[in-house]
């Protein structure tokens, strides 16, 4: 490492741009990035603004859910307390858990990344700022509405994992469960939007020279987390869809009497739920890997080991889901695998912990608030990890399942593993926002209160659990040995809350004393500590090592005086450099979208659509949906601007085009990620389809005579293939600038895609298959309906492309819109063929044997 740095400095080339910079260059850059003023600020989309709002919204939800926790702890302070009745208590723990997990933990780690990551990568913004703005508004508005259900006695009460049959139509008649299913289903959309942003951002907008091997660990982490969201969230999206359909239309996915199985929900939920834990923890680990070297003033020990550990956690965590189901009677044989994987995953986490300890050991640690919070993290997270390994032992889990031992464990890993690091991060990165550190004195007190309160609240709960107190009970008898323990826990909870309150006092006090400059108070080595304006860095640095600010002490003045790449705006608009994914060599200039009301409008429309749908107000729901759709349409319309400018000289002899189509383009990458998500949702539905097979007591398919004759699916598959061919013709027409041909082929291809779907669904229907009859039929219709959703999107895309062609903004050069839609379209067609093959192919196979 040391040697590498030296040889680099000997070889250091002159900065890519020379001084003095032309007059007005900085002013033009400032103009392009000037944030909107007054109430128009709400239309801002750049990551420094949206990121802050996003963090604020997530912290707000933490406070709200925390209040619910205090209510619960107050109720539990004394035995046989009748402050809160069972109905409300059920709503409280459900909302507390749900809001903490879905509206605080996941959003806050994404929000931190939205704020910090571009600066750390040396980008001026994320590749799709309006997408993050949309994600923020949809999440904030939707989340507040969801929380509001508490005030109308309409909150869900089935626990944060919402197991049927308790949450089925029969046992949860109110609309609470629907709020959960639709509300969370739609929060997930916002999480996925964030993941697309993070993946494309880390892979494509790194500063020139920041190859994969020099990428900050935090960026590696967010890349892994993005991938985990892509593969982790789809199962629960599928599950919420299925349960909501069951509740609304009585398709019996989880009803045992009609061939369904409530356990299927648990599989799908925890296929998501365990990766979720790491989706929450890994970003915290990434922040720790950033803070520890800066606070210890030495590079992270074992960079490569840590990267390997991140990959290890990311993949191993996919094989843990059934450890939440040890007590459900799944075959012992299968449990072995999940138990083993649950222990194996401790290894990569341990590797990271040793890397941090070694770094602290080697370095010279600064005594400051972030350090204290990190120590609190070490103490509590290691403890929680150990109780986790205890729980991975199947017989032990049987003993303490559903007791307060589990409540203690999960708060040790969640609060220990992500809340303490998050607060460390707030103190560590606050100078980027306030221009100064937060108060060391208040911070130290806050940390002491939080850690002691946390320990007093949750350490005794292990015992309470071992003594047999079940979770999710609104009260308990006196004299079972739980009284004192509960009282102590409640006192601890209030102490913890007072520590959190103190942090907010500190934030409020500091916000009145902000300074414009952004000093590198920790003498950190990563790029976010470069001097920045609303435009990010003045010029985009050339990166030569893992700690650019340490490797080249002159980097900050060089960057600020405009000596590095793109020291201004070349086109007069917002821009950032897109680089190649492995070695980060510059490829083209991305024109970044500016302020707009459309994301806000689309977000509000989406939230309204889901809300009104839940309370079955169809007209307002339709209105919300149309608003969202129109806003998205207009917003996308503005994005594909074509080569509006001649290629640009960014310095160092590099000239970049301002438009890129094909697989180089960032939109193409975003679409690929979206398709990965779609494919994973499909796999979850296919998993459900086959799952019914393995549990079927009798023959499968249960009623073969309600399957269509082979010509139906065969015709549908042929039409899909034909549509793909037409699409190819359309592309050839586009290459030849043959506008008529393009439109004709697009139109016919759309009709063919639609008719393929209609034939498939009609075939199934005319054979006499009813979705309400049996889980098998329901799962067939679920697969076909999922395909229908994609076909609907394809039709909208076709209309969009036709409109663009007619408006003269789609041609052989300005063609990104076409390429991105084509990718989705082709995927849809092949998905159609695959779905038909799965359904009718396996039915035929099973019938033959």
């Amino acid at each position, binding site marked *: 490492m040391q040697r*590498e740095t030296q*040889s*680099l400095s000997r*070889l250091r080339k002159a900065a890519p741009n020379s001084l003095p910079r032309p007059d007005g260059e900085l002013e033009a850059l400032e103009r392009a990035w000037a944030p909107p003023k007054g109430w128009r600020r709400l239309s801002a989309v750049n990551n420094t603004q949206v990121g802050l709002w996003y963090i604020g919204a997530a912290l707000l939800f933490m406070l709200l859910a925390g209040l619910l926790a205090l209510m619960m702890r107050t109720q539990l302070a004394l035995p046989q307390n009748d402050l809160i009745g069972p109905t409300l208590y059920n709503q409280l723990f459900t909302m507390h858990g749900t809001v903490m997990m879905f509206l605080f933990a996941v959003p806050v780690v994404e929000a931190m990344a939205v704020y910090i990551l571009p600066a750390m990568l040396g980008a001026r913004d994320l590749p799709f700022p309006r997408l993050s703005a949309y994600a923020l508004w949809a999440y904030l508005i939707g989340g507040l509405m969801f929380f509001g259900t508490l005030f109308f006695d309409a909150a869900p009460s089935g626990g944060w994992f919402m197991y049927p049959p308790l949450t089925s139509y029969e046992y949860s008649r109110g609309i609470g469960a629907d709020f959960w299913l639709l509300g969370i289903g739609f929060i997930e959309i916002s999480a996925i939007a964030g993941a697309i942003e993070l993946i494309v951002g880390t*892979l494509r907008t790194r500063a020139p020279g920041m*190859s*994969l*091997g*020099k990428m900050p660990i935090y960026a590696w982490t967010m890349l892994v987390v993005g991938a985990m969201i892509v593969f982790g969230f789809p199962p629960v999206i599928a599950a919420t869809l299925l349960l909501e359909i069951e509740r609304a239309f009585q398709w019996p996915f989880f009803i045992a009497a009609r061939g369904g199985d409530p356990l299927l929900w648990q599989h799908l939920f925890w296929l998501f739920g365990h990766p979720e834990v790491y989706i929450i923890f890994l970003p915290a680990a990434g922040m720790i890997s950033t803070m520890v070297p800066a606070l210890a003033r030495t590079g992270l020990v074992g*960079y*490569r*080991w840590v*990267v*390997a*550990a991140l*990959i*290890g956690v990311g*993949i*191993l965590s*996919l*094989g843990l889901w059934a450890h939440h189901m040890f007590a459900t009677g799944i*075959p*012992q*044989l*299968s449990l*072995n*695998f999940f*138990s*083993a*994987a649950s*222990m*194996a995953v401790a*290894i*990569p986490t341990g590797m990271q912990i040793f890397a941090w300890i070694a770094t602290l050991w080697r370095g010279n640690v600064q005594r400051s608030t972030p350090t204290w919070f990190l120590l609190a993290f070490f103490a509590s997270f290691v403890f929680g990890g150990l109780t986790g390994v205890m729980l991975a032992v199947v017989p032990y889990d049987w003993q303490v399942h559903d007791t307060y031992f589990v409540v203690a464990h999960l708060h040790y890993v969640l609060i220990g593993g992500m809340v303490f690091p998050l607060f460390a991060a707030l103190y560590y990165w606050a100078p980027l926002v306030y221009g100064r550190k937060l108060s060391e004195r208040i911070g130290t007190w806050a940390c002491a209160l939080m850690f002691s309160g946390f320990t007093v609240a949750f350490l005794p709960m292990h015992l309470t659990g071992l003594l047999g107190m079940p979770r999710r009970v609104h009260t308990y008898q006196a004299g079972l040995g739980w009284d004192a323990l509960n009282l102590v826990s409640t006192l601890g909870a209030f102490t913890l809350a007072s520590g959190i309150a103190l942090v907010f006092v500190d934030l409020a006090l500091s916000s009145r004393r902000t300074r414009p400059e952004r000093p590198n108070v920790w003498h950190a080595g990563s790029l976010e500590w470069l001097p920045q304006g609303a435009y990010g860095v003045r010029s985009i640095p050339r990166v030569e090592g893992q700690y650019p600010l340490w490797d080249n002490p002159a980097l900050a003045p060089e960057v600020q005086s405009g000596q590095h790449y793109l020291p201004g705006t070349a086109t007069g608009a917002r821009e950032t450099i897109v680089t190649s*994914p*492995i*070695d980060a060599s510059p490829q083209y200039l991305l024109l970044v979208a500016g302020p707009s009301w459309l994301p806000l409008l689309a977000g509000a429309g989406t939230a309204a659509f889901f809300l009104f749908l839940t309370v079955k107000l169809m007209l307002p729901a339709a209105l919300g949906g149309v608003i969202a759709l129109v806003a998205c349409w207009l917003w996308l319309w503005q994005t594909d601007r074509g080569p509006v400018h001649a290629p640009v000289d960014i310095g160092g002899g590099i000239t970049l085009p301002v438009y890129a189509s094909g697989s180089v383009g960032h939109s193409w990458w975003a679409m690929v990620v979206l398709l990965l998500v779609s494919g994973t949702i499909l796999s979850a539905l296919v998993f459900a389809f086959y799952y019914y097979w*393995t*549990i079927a007591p009798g023959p499968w398919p249960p009623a073969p005579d309600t399957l269509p004759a082979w010509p139906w699916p065969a015709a549908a598959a042929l039409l899909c293939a034909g549509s793909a061919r037409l699409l190819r013709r359309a592309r050839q027409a586009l290459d030849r600038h043959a506008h008529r041909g393009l439109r004709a082929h697009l139109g016919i291809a759309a009709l063919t895609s639609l008719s393929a779907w209609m034939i498939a669904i009609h075939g199934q229907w005319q054979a006499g298959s009813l979705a309400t009859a049996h889980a098998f039929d329901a799962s067939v219709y679920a697969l076909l309906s999922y395909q229908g959703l994609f076909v609907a999107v394809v039709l909208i895309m076709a209309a969009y492309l036709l409109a663009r062609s007619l408006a003269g903004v789609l041609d052989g050069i300005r063609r990104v819109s076409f390429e991105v839609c084509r990718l989705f379209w082709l995927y849809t067609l092949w998905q159609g063929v695959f779905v038909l093959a799965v359904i009718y192919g396996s039915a035929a196979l099973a019938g033959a044997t």
Partner: protein
Amino acid sequence: MSVSIGSRLLLLTGGLLIWAGLFLFSYILAALACARGFADSAWLGVGVVPLGLVLAAVAAMAGLLRLIRHARRLGARVQHARRLDDTAGVSADVARMVCLLAAIAIAWHVLPVLISGTHC
């Protein structure tokens, strides 16, 4: 040097993807064995399920070995070329570490079944 990001990511994650494949295989094998009632059946005195598992694990380990060798060659090439860009070197190292993790996870994966048997 122009490797695609896809193949680079495949190299980095390959070891554990092999583990994931084995996991999926075992999960399906166990589900079928219990649902279709052949969990305890034997072939020439050897349990069918343990046999299947061990064979799959051996295949997986062989896959890991190949991957490790591939990564080592890549690493050696990088050193030889004394290139300043360390991406390939880092990737080769990380890939091997991931393989190591996968090897431990795989050993761990089959042992319990061999020890505690194949009850459903």
